[in-house]
């Protein structure tokens, strides 16, 4: 038995040696391969933004160091506008290209946030009482949260006073800089509906009535009567603040109302939509529209209160990509016109002499259209004391860039290339439009609410809401899309527009891609 036990132990030892040491001791054959230097490279999602044929503005490499370029070229610089008179220059082409290697599944457009960029560096650790900035885009209220960002570094300051548009400094409550923010760091007023930076601190239960919310420390200021919109996934609900709340507050009092869904803490965001995005702001002109003329600052009947010109100027954004048209903003959108046209009034000249007489679906060569003309629209041609009307023929929809109109009617006069052709139908529609103003665009389409999702346009007036790619990568055929941004100063019937004399509105448009 002892011998048997010894034998078995011996076999175990041999087995163990064979298992653990056999490879090095007994093997005659071996083989081995190695895959060295494997690399995992991330793709890129970057964009470029070009106005007309100007310099291409890239998101990558911007001074903000976070793939955000908040200071691409202005699209419009319009002077001496008059009510009801379409300006030949009142539109600009904007080309947006995905310059990265990754498709963008979402492509958005919205009103620019109130903000600017640092015009001088902040010293890390230093007490900051004022933020030096390039001309402020928009206006800031005292108590607003001011977010400074450079790459991964962020810091929120509190505005110590109201700041008007174009200001070059924002007074803030003293705070030590948590980083040496360089020139070009982005500066954003996050209290202007621009970012969802406020969250619930305790959940709301569906069906339960609430007269107050527990919140994470409030960023910004809430006033009694403000509309507070809760957002969680697809659920939204609006409450009315019954009392004001200051920055840092941990609760908000609201008019009692039952929650229409369950809103979890932490991930439920809310915004005060009564704190409108004041991106667009008015100023009095300091230079006459023509040499030696009166200017806005000369006048005593054009107050700036409430940014009246921003509230009157009509805005439109017309997509023109690849000859397919869609009206994303302005009259013609919501609901979308079947032909995809925004009401965009033209002002063009014929490119050849126009003879008098009967026109029947006659081609009328014109300079590249700076607007749209729908079939059936009434066209007015004028030169000096001469004027006639024509009608755009059936089936003759003419879009931005078209080089001819198709007209019917009888001309009593002949015209030269100095004549001007306008579309009184489009102008008439806009003259009674009080909805599609820049101010309303700012409020309805800011970075938090109402971002306009720029679905791919598949035909005039038609988009694909299911296409997983809204702006293809740089090597794809769908990497570039083009838009026409325009404004029109309406002439509402029976309304004196004198208070809008000598004013200048300044505003921004933001384009955003998500992977």
């Amino acid at each position, binding site marked *: 038995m002892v011998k048997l036990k010894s034998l078995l132990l011996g076999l175990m030892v041999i087995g163990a040696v064979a298992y653990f040491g056999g490879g090095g001791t007994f093997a005659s054959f071996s083989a081995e391969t190695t895959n060295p230097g494997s690399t995992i490279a991330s793709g890129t999602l970057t964009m470029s933004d070009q106005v007309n044929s100007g310099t291409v503005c890239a998101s990558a490499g911007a001074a903000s160091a976070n793939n955000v370029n908040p200071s691409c070229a202005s699209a419009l610089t319009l002077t001496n506008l008059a009510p009801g008179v379409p300006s030949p220059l009142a539109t600009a082409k904007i080309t947006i290209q995905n310059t990265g290697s990754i498709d963008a599944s979402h492509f958005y457009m919205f009103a620019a946030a109130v903000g600017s960029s640092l015009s001088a560096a902040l010293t890390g650790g230093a007490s900051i009482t004022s933020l030096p900035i390039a*001309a402020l885009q928009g206006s800031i209220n005292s108590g607003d949260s001011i977010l400074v960002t450079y790459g991964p570094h962020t810091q929120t300051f509190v505005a110590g006073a109201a700041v008007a548009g174009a200001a070059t400094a924002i007074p803030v409550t003293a705070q030590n800089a948590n980083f040496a923010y360089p020139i070009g760091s982005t500066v954003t007023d996050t209290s202007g509906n621009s970012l969802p930076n406020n969250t619930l601190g305790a959940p709301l239960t569906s069906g339960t009535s609430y007269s107050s919310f527990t919140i994470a420390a409030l960023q910004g200021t809430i006033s009694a009567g403000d509309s507070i919109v809760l957002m969680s996934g697809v659920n939204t609900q609006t409450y009315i603040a019954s009392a004001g709340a200051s920055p840092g507050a941990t609760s908000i009092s609201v008019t009692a109302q039952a929650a229409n869904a369950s809103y979890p803490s932490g991930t439920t965001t809310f915004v005060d939509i009564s704190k409108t995005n004041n991106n667009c702001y008015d100023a009095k002109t300091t230079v006459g*529209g*023509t040499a030696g003329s009166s200017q806005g600052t000369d006048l005593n*009947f054009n107050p700036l209160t409430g940014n009246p010109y921003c509230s009157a100027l009509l805005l439109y954004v017309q997509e023109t990509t690849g000859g397919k048209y869609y009206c994303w903003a302005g009259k013609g959108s919501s609901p979308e016109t079947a032909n995809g046209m925004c009401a965009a009034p033209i002002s063009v000249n014929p490119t050849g002499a126009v003879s008098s007489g009967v026109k029947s679906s006659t081609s009328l060569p014109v300079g590249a259209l700076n607007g749209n003309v729908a079939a059936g629209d009434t066209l007015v041609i004028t030169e000096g004391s001469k004027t006639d009307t024509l009608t755009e023929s059936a089936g003759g929809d003419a879009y931005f860039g078209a080089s001819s109109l198709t007209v019917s009617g009888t001309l009593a006069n002949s015209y030269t290339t100095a004549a001007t052709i306008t579309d009184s139908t489009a102008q008439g529609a806009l003259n009674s439009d009080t909805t599609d103003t820049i101010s309303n665009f700012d409020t309805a389409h800011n970075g938090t609410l109402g971002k306009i999702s720029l679905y791919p346009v598949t035909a005039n007036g038609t988009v694909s809401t299911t296409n997983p790619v809204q702006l293809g990568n740089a090597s794809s055929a769908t990497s570039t899309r083009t838009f026409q941004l325009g*404004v029109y100063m309406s002439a509402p019937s029976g309304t004196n527009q004198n208070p809008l004399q000598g004013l200048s509105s300044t505003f*921004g448009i933001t384009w955003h891609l998500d992977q």
Partner: protein
Amino acid sequence: MSLLVVGALSSLTAASTYALMNTESTNVLNTASSGTLTLSNTVNSGSACFSYGAGSTGNTNPGCDALFTSATLNYPGTPVTAKVKIKDDGSLDVGTLSIAMSPCAVAATPGAPAPGGGNPCDAAGDNFALQETDSSWNPTFCWYPDYSAGACTVSAGTLNYFSTNAPPANPYNLSLGYPSGPVHAATRYFQVIVQLPTGASNTLQGEAAVFTLNWHIET
């Protein structure tokens, strides 16, 4: 099974919580500026009176210089003339220039020893003419009473007719061809002429006509 559940949660969390790649650009400082439509009014060699100047309200200035004063005495058959320069002081071109006269009212000439009791605003009262000129004050077009090129026939018109037919509610459009103007920075020149008729009655002695002329422009 537990590991599979953890894996699924991680995946969902990553998709909904962590930032994916994104990029953004903003076209800033788009500006749209309105022009101005203002006018200046200069009587004879006086100072320019601006529609938006001192004393004005809403681009209307009711306090510009008077064309005539009671110090200027009229005599039958002798016209008195006020030269008026209307300038488009704004940046936009004038589309329409119009003129209107408030109702004419009679008043006693200050200091007159014995007012005659007549009314220069009546049909048999003062003659009136509106003459457009060039910048050297040479007649170019008579708006009233002749409505023709050249100089006015002053004796053919009356204050009574003009004030009745060109009240503020129905101003007289001073358009001549197109654009009627003046265009921005340009000036139009007018002479407002009044005289007592050659055969004026003694009842018009010591009587004054008081009226207001409004100059109005629109785009």
